[in-house]
């Protein structure tokens, strides 16, 4: 680990690999969530499987949490080192003249996503842990859909989620394609990777926002 922290390229690779891992996880998470809009039963089945399968719970979940922690801790280390590398600050620095806003503000879009993850863990993960291991309730494979809808009843939570998805979109807009460059991939496929990044960075957060809004408004309309 100390060797990793010592090399700038190794730090970058840790950032890129954990980022790509989170991108893959996000696609899976989105797929499962989207079933809640199509079929509550399917959503319940998936959720129950994820909640009680020992491989998911005791292998994949810790790996995911480690991935998130490694990513944001390394992000903060990079930010501190990069600030120090400037030394005396410029009186005038025109960052917008040569680099896009999203690429210069990854720490801020990341910080909002991190704050969101705090809320999201409190909302769903902590609730699950309490349900299963503290209150030791019996298994109930049909509760997930109703619980999710209930979560999105307050407008403030729905709004906070939607704003966070907006910032996630900005984070991915730069981050996804950037991780390929970090891994040493810059060739004739790069324009395709950049285009795919743009589609992914818009479609996935937009989809998540749609799901949140759907569960907020669906019960009001019906």
């Amino acid at each position: 680990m100390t060797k990793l922290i010592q090399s700038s390229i190794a730090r970058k690779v840790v950032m890129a690999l954990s980022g790509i891992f989170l991108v893959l996880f996000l696609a899976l998470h989105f797929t499962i969530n989207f079933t809640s809009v199509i079929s509550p039963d399917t959503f319940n089945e998936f959720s129950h499987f994820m909640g009680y399968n020992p491989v998911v719970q005791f292998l994949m979940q810790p790996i995911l949490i480690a991935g998130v922690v490694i990513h944001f801790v390394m992000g903060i280390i990079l930010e501190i080192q990069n600030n120090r590398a400037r030394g005396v600050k410029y009186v005038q620095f025109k960052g917008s003249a040569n680099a896009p806003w999203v690429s210069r503000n990854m720490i801020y879009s990341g910080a909002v996503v991190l704050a969101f993850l705090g809320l999201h863990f409190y909302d769903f993960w902590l609730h699950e842990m309490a349900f299963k291991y503290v209150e030791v309730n019996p298994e109930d494979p049909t509760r997930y859909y109703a619980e999710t809808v209930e979560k999105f009843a307050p407008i403030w939570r729905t709004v906070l989620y939607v704003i966070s998805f907006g910032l996630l979109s900005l984070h991915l807009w730069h981050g996804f394609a950037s991780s390929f460059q970090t891994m040493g991939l810059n060739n004739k496929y790069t324009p395709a990777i950049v285009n795919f990044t743009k589609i992914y960075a818009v479609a996935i957060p937009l989809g998540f926002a749609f799901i949140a809004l759907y569960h907020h408004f669906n019960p009001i309309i019906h």
Partner: protein
Amino acid sequence: MKIYLKIWRQKDAASKGKMVDYTMEGIEGDMSFLEMLDILNEELITKGEEPIEFDHDCREGICGTCSLQINGRPHGPDTMITACQLHMRSFNDGDTITIEPFRAKAFPVIKDLIIDRTAFDRIQQAGGFISVNTSGHTIDANSIPIEKEKADDSFYAAACIGCGACVAACKNASAMLFTSAKVSQFALLPQGRVEATDRVLNMVRQMDIEGFGNCTNTGACEVECPKGISLENIARMNREYLSASLKG
């Protein structure tokens, strides 16, 4: 043209500097930016004041010495040029122009606008060379066939003049574009492959020791580089570094 200048003045490395205001009249569009500073310095000397120290040598865009941060950008508002190639016609009558030294912890200010870029020399010395026996048995370079494409890419990388604009432009003060150009120019050629593993490991290690920041792929360096050094070189260096690390 009448021009208002805000220029960084700093007595020596140990002193704290500050921005000082100057006003200049009768500036012509055809004057180069450095000529404008020459005229200002003549005025200062005539008045018995200390002239503004700034670095320059060739004044034709090939040596990379003229390190000026002009209006928040290395080498000023135009791209693909050094500060000596910038002309006053890029500015308008009544403009305020700020001039600062390139800023990086690894490039400490020596005086006024002059910075110490020996950090780049040390990166170069760590591996930016090939070991050739020059004791009278030098083999003709053309005796080794090289693909045209690789020769071209190597040549483009070798165009880096070590000016430091990439570091100055980067929000992280990262020296990845410079180092990657110096790694790439050899990595692409058969003569350079022999020492490729040690070269990339040693040059990146030196770059880190000097205290440059971590690249976050903003691409500012590529936009500001007067020689158009491409980000592809950074990807190549990362590849080289990763495979060299795995080899151990």
